[in-house]
């Protein structure tokens, strides 16, 4: 296991060093390193350690640092070094990661030295030890809220890679369901996704909510029927995995506050929000013509925000001229790209940009590597995978009623369209997708039923009531 943990700043100065084993020496067999802001978090080991465990631990350490100090950078470490040592001593014993749940740790490793009577402290400490070793290490006892609320964010990163000839090489979705639970006591939550939830490539699927049959029906009809096919799912520590394997129910006792309930991957039936048509034309050695058309493939009631299209230009671009039907375009010499920004992109609309890049003469004609055109955007109330949250049920002893909110967002992960590889000649890349009847329209409508006056509502635009 780990022999020690070291933190360095960018100059290579040692900030923290904690050895856990005798074999901790400056020159060790293997060093694992990740970066957090401006510091390097380094784990060292002398044996054939489980590398995944080490990296996961280092990631965890960084997130722990962030939740304690707000940020985990040189400044935070320097002003909290004693706390960092205290944390390290707690989360690693003999180099083995121990309980790393922030919730539990915060019970006894606190930023302010709390004043407690001896008797209280003793009672507390046995509670703490139960918590730190118990099966429910992620949740404290006795959590109380006057108003019980739960917020669910479904966030999808859609990745697209289109070849220069217009074939979709890769289209997939990395999704995550983030939850913020402000619930009293020890609530059992049950989470319901689409009526049909298929997992894996073929066969081994189980239906949720009793909609049986229609296996192998065509994709479009599946989507319309509110089903979703997920390639793979990873679930938070708190989810009962065996239940999920047996009948695809996601049941759990949530940690208090925000956490990532699940991440998933979908490759089938991915709905791409934008269709891009790019024509790049190298005119001789002195000019490149661009003609880009982007069409929004989602319902006209929805709109994407912060749409940024980055159109790479050759390295020896001297000057550009451009015209857009919407938004603003600007040549960014530092990025070697024309950046086209569209603040609001309404569904079903199409915007075009035409541009011309003048090239400066070069002594040696070097082929332009043609990086792909890339896009950024965020789009509310739309999921590319078709995933839907049907219900979230909360069961608790005291039987209180709770308010649940859900929000969907699709963002661009790596949304890239290649511009073709060979020099000279004319390249054209067109992408066409079929949009199936969109079940997400329903979500858009239910937006209207947004409850007014909720305390936290303002910070969650576009949520709808479950």
């Amino acid at each position, binding site marked *: 296991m780990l022999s020690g943990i070291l933190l360095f700043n960018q100059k290579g100065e040692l900030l923290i060093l904690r050895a856990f084993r005798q074999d901790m020496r400056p020159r060790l067999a293997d060093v694992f390193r990740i970066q957090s802001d401006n510091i390097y978090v380094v784990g060292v080991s002398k044996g054939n350690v489980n590398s*995944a465990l080490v990296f996961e631990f280092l*990631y965890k350490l960084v997130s722990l640092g962030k939740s304690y100090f707000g940020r985990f950078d040189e400044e935070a470490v320097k002003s909290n070094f004693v706390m960092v040592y205290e944390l390290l001593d707690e989360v690693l014993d003999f180099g083995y990661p121990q309980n790393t749940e922030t919730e539990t740790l915060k019970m006894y490793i606190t930023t302010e030295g709390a004043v407690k009577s001896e008797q209280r402290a003793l009672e507390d*400490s046995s509670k*703490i030890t139960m918590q730190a070793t118990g099966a429910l290490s992620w949740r404290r006892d006795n959590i109380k809220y006057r108003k019980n609320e739960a917020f669910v964010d479904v966030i999808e990163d859609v*990745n697209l890679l289109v070849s220069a000839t217009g074939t979709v090489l890769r289209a997939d979705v990395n999704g995550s369901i983030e939850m913020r639970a402000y619930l009293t006591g020890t609530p059992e939550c049950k989470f319901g996704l689409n009526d049909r939830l298929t997992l894996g490539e073929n066969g081994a699927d189980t239906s949720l909510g009793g909609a049986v049959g229609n296996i192998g029906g065509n994709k479009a009809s599946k989507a319309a029927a509110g089903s979703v096919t997920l390639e*793979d799912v990873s679930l938070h520590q708190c989810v009962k995995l065996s239940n999920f394997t047996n009948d695809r129910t996601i049941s759990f006792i949530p940690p208090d506050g925000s956490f990532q309930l*699940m991440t998933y991957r979908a490759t089938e039936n991915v709905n791409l929000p934008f269709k891009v048509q790019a024509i790049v034309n190298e005119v001789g050695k002195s000019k490149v013509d661009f003609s880009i058309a982007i069409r929004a493939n989602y319902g006209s009631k929805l709109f994407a925000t912060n749409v940024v299209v980055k159109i790479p230009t050759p390295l020896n671009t001297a000057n550009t001229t451009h015209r857009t039907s919407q938004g603003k375009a600007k040549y960014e010499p530092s990025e070697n790209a024309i950046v086209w920004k569209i603040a609001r992109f309404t569904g079903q609309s199409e915007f075009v940009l035409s541009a011309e890049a003048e090239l400066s003469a070069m002594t040696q004609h070097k082929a332009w590597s043609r990086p792909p055109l890339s896009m950024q955007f965020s789009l509310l109330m739309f999921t590319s995978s078709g995933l839907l949250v049907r219900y979230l049920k909360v069961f608790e002893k005291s039987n209180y009623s709770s308010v649940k909110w859900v929000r969907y967002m699709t963002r661009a992960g790596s949304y890239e369209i290649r511009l073709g590889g060979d020099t000279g000649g004319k390249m054209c890349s067109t992408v066409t997708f079929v949009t199936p009847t969109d079940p997400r329209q329903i979500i858009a409508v239910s937006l209207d039923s947004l409850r007014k006056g909720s305390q936290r509502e303002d910070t969650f635009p576009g949520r709808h009531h479950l």
Partner: protein
Amino acid sequence: MPIPMPMHVISPYGGAAAWNALPPQYRPLTQNAVLTAAQGKVAELRLELNSSGGKKDKNFSSKKIALKKIVANMTMSNNDMVALFPDIVGVMGTQSLEIKKMCFLYLVNYARTKPEIALKALPILLNDLEDSNPLMRALALRTLSYVHVKQYVENTVQPLKGLLKDSDPYVRKTAAFCVAKLYDHDRHLVEGSDLIDRLNMMLRDENPTVVSSALASLMDIWERSESIKLTIDYANASKIVQILPDCSEWGQTYILEALTSYVPQDTSEAALLADRITPRLSHTNSAVVLTCIRVILYLMNYIDSEKTIALLCTKLSPPLVTLLSKGPEIQYLALRNALLILQRRPEVLRNDIRVFFCKYNDPIYVKVTKLELIFMLASEKNIREVLTELREYATEIDVHFVRKSVRAIGKLAIKIEPAAKLCIASLLELVATKVSYIVQEATVVIKNIFRKYPNQYESIISTLCENLDSLDEPEAKAAMIWVIGQYADRIENSEVLLEDFLDGWADETHDVQLALLTATVKLFIQRPSKGQDLVPKVLKWATEDTDNPDLRDRGYMYWRLLSSNPAAAKSIVMGEKPAITAESEKLDPATLEEMCLVVGTLATVYLKPVHTVFRSARPRRLQDSPALQKERLPSWQAAQKAKLLTERQLAGGAPPALQSQQYAANGNGSAGRNADALEEADALFASMGGQNMMSSMNDGFASSPTHAVHGEQSQMYIVNQGQGLGTMRPMTHAEDGEGDLLSF
């Protein structure tokens, strides 16, 4: 000169600001100043630490502030705080968890340098072991066991026995790890006590965290001891699998790791257990996922039903691919493991080639590994898609990656025969870009294509010849020269081309000179009239004007061959050579088996046998049992193949080298693999070298340069795996040798 004392301005709350307010140039200038500054600081801190802080200071806040400064100085600056040791021991008894924590940290840091002072703290710590507060007991125990001082270790054993049965689970889990720590300090002491037995008993604890900690501790001890055997029977295995869901993510990992010590006696047991742990594949922590994959791969060795195995394989693919959406470090780890798993269980990932297509901004190490996977997964079915992708990579900016992509295309031509034409077309497209390094790389791979498909695709020679001028790298030059020599009779102006190259003879590297020598001889043999002027000149350079022994020897050999028996020379130099193969670099079967038992560990990043990286690591191997599916193990299959080969070869008077090869392959399956496995391997490699020489002798001398080049070549293909890996190199030769022998 004012000497700044940074610690003065640090308050526990506004610390950061104070630190940063101090510009770095304000440092003491002379050594002397450092010394006095340090001494002055120590005195000051001592005063601060020992001040009572007045009656109001109930929470010892002045002491806490002083301690914080001391701890900060201990690590962040180079000021030696060891002089304060007695004072620290003095305040250690203070009833405050916060103060104790800082004192203990100090103790762990300095105990080794000043054991005699550390001893004074021992009674305090032993006393704290009986504290009513479980957090305190655990803290004291944890600290005690970090101190590498004899008396500390000896005095911990007795109280530890009691603490292993503490009423509080947090203390019990700390005590469990403590046993492994003591074992690290003094193994004989622990082996002489009953601590390990007691630790074993803890596996029956009601608290899952305690159980997983005890297991981790046992595994740690086992890893470092030859005398201890770890056996987990089905009942135990079943029990620990049952508590998996109640453990923390780390606890789950420890338990899964321990499961590879369970040896299934019955194939249905193995299948059942594998099925029971599959839910872990959906865990969000990649350590849990990868370790679970390891256990399932391990259990598959004991499962006889092919259907069950196929089902398990389909379950492994998605989680493996999901790891690719994690951080780049985890991605790389997952990819390296995918390389491994793919060799052992090709069914996994079979349909997933697209997920390995590179993203534009993937880190280079991720890209290169993905490229390797793409090569491995490429088949006749997906070759078009793969080639489009590789052509795309070949136009990227990173030269290293571009070269590897070009090589991969060439290698695919050799790997997938029906696709050779397509691959060559792609290469020619790339050559047309005229980018120098692409052309050179393509030249090298095209030479290999000629070697695989002799007398085909010769039409492309002319394309290659157009780009002669852009060749400036030795490897590319040597490749081109080989082509010219080999096809001297079909290239119109071969002697002119060769002469151009010969002009720069003196400046060329030895590899190029060797290639030139051979090519000139080939030219002479095929077209005596054209080569007769060149040969004497080159032979003279090679034998008289060089200090390179290989070049001289080869020069003399050609000379004598040509002068004594021109007919023999022709049959030897231009004789038919065995075609090359391009199977990707595979791990040898025994290593493969071993690596599959350690999926997710560092060794899988290097893809090298564990003991070559970690000498002290305990070797892992599949334990025999009635359920073990021996005949499906790669090492067993290889041994069978080798045996068959030996029999055939013995009938035909085979070189003795093969026998030792078979012996080595056999040795791994059974008891033979231990410390002397290395020597065994050395012996094997030595004999392989001999065999390689034998085969080149059979081929005739002319082919030896190409052999050498080929050996290097295949090294390059295994993108990362073979670089700087001395022990693997002979293995490559061994495979080549084997391939050569098979084709006789």
